[in-house]
């Protein structure tokens, strides 16, 4: 029992890039355990996702194609994953630390009598497997070990590069977990925030706005700047709570964690809970009227300026460069 099982995540019939980062984590882990990397796909008629998963040089791709998995429900997915973990002799079961991964994996851990690590940022072998994970809004990093034979891990995908296709295609095996659908949980709806922009967690550039923008309409200038650079749009919790931006845009301890090449924090003060979601960015630009705003403690480039003037000017000048 040394194999590593990756639970794939997909949206709109396409593999989510976060899964490719988990495959990289799984390769690191399998090298230490001396096992293979296997992938489990749960869904209904997502053959294209299965075909894509076959391109990453993994040992087995298990595909449970069933209408019971058309919509995500932890109550139906968790027992299927536990069955796949037994089928593949998995020592480690892992998935992205997305909202789905967070909702799902503890249930998998309970069924497998496994200890679970949330938000792993590294795996190493130092007299047994050790995982590092952030806590206290990223202000502390702990090293932990899991004493149970099977270990369940949610992976902080910003800390692992997305795996690239490699080697021959793996044959896709159909897999029947043999679990009856739950009678106590029902999927009702998924209301997707549709956007032409890249996903926040994948984007090379993120432009985030805060409460200082004072209205949802004023977020237009944030979107214009993002679109100029082909970036994604984010927001502070205060901006989301005030109704300026949808919840899906929230960055921070209790929102998304991003680590783009370039992050703009516009009219965001820089509370520790916000920093927890963006401190790993390569270049941070802060635009704020208050020279003492804590965001300037972590930014590479700061502008003490009124966003309503600086952002449109910046967009215009960058647009000229990009053209």
């Amino acid at each position, binding site marked *: 029992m040394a194999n590593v099982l990756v639970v794939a995540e997909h949206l709109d019939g396409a593999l989510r890039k976060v899964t490719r980062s988990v495959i990289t984590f799984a390769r690191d882990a399998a090298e230490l355990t001396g096992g293979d990397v296997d992938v489990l796909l749960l869904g209904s008629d997502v053959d294209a996702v299965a075909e894509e998963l076959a391109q990453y040089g993994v040992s087995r791709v298990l595909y449970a194609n069933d209408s019971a998995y058309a919509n995500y429900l932890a109550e139906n997915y968790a027992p299927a994953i536990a069955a796949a973990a037994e089928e593949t002799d998995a020592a480690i079961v892992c998935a992205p630390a997305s909202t789905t991964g967070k*909702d799902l994996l503890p249930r998998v851990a309970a069924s497998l009598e496994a200890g679970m690590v949330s938000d792993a940022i590294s795996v190493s072998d130092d007299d047994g497997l050790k995982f590092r994970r952030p806590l206290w809004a990223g202000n502390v990093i702990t090293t932990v070990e899991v004493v149970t034979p099977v270990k369940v891990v949610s992976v902080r995908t910003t800390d692992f590069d997305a795996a690239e296709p490699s080697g021959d295609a793996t044959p896709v095996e159909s897999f029947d977990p043999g679990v009856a659908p739950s009678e106590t949980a029902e999927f009702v709806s998924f*209301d997707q925030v549709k956007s032409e922009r890249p996903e926040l967690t994948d984007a090379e550039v993120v432009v985030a706005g805060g409460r200082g923008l004072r209205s949802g309409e004023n977020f237009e200038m944030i979107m214009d700047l993002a679109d100029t650079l082909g970036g994604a749009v984010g927001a502070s919790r205060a901006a989301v709570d005030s109704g300026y931006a949808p919840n899906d845009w929230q960055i921070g301890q209790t929102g998304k964690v991003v680590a783009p090449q370039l992050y703009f924090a516009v009219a965001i003060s820089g509370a520790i809970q916000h920093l927890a979601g963006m401190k790993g960015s390569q270049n941070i630009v802060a635009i704020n009227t208050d020279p003492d705003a804590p965001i300037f403690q972590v930014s590479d480039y700061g502008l003490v300026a009124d966003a309503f003037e600086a952002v449109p000017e910046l967009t215009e000048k960058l647009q000229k460069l990009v053209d």
Partner: protein
Amino acid sequence: MKILTTVKRVTDPDMKVKIKPDQSGVVTEGVEYKMNSFDEYGVEEAIAIKEEHGGEVVAVSIGPSQSTKELRTAMAMGADRAILVETDADLDSDAVARVLTEIVQREEPDVILMGKQSVDSDRSQAAQLLASYLDWPQATFAYDVEVADGWATVGREVDGGTSTKRIRLPGIITADLRLNEPRYASLPGIMKAKRKPLETLTPDDLGVDIAPRVNVLKFEAPEEREAGEILEDVDELVDRLKNEANVI
């Protein structure tokens, strides 16, 4: 309707935590504690459900004797009684879930309200583990809860948007931050809370072995970012982004 709500005592999220020189934990001297922020939303929702449907709200905490303070806060907000499972041990989420499993078997609640994550350990595991041990359905990250006819309809904040799920009670719901506005404890509430029943048990009384499945070996500070420069104007910013950071 009997509603159970969980309350974790955590370090004040707005304080900067310091790590002990021997890396064995964080400095606890002089540290302020309070109720986990997400649990305030859970307690509020529990009380709101009671106000609509009648019944009883029971608050539970697992931790040191000082956690009675957070339980009194929950009762001052409106919980009817409280249970402290007293231990000074460092519990992992699994031990928390196994202790709560025993409490649920004794109390037989119709619904359990918990926080979506602890602001100290940031794990987001305890509720889902508990749901699995009880073989109950779960609705995590709730921003909207409607209880009717033995079911809860829950709006959830998820990647990519929002989603709605129905669970048949008994079930577990975890609170996200936009679920409600937690009420403040009023002065009469605080006075009343002093006389509300608070039962103290130990993990031994419940027959739960709290040995962790996950051991924390070392605490470290992350690499600090250095503060950069304050620039003159937009032109300088554009220049630096293009010619120094090479990101345009």
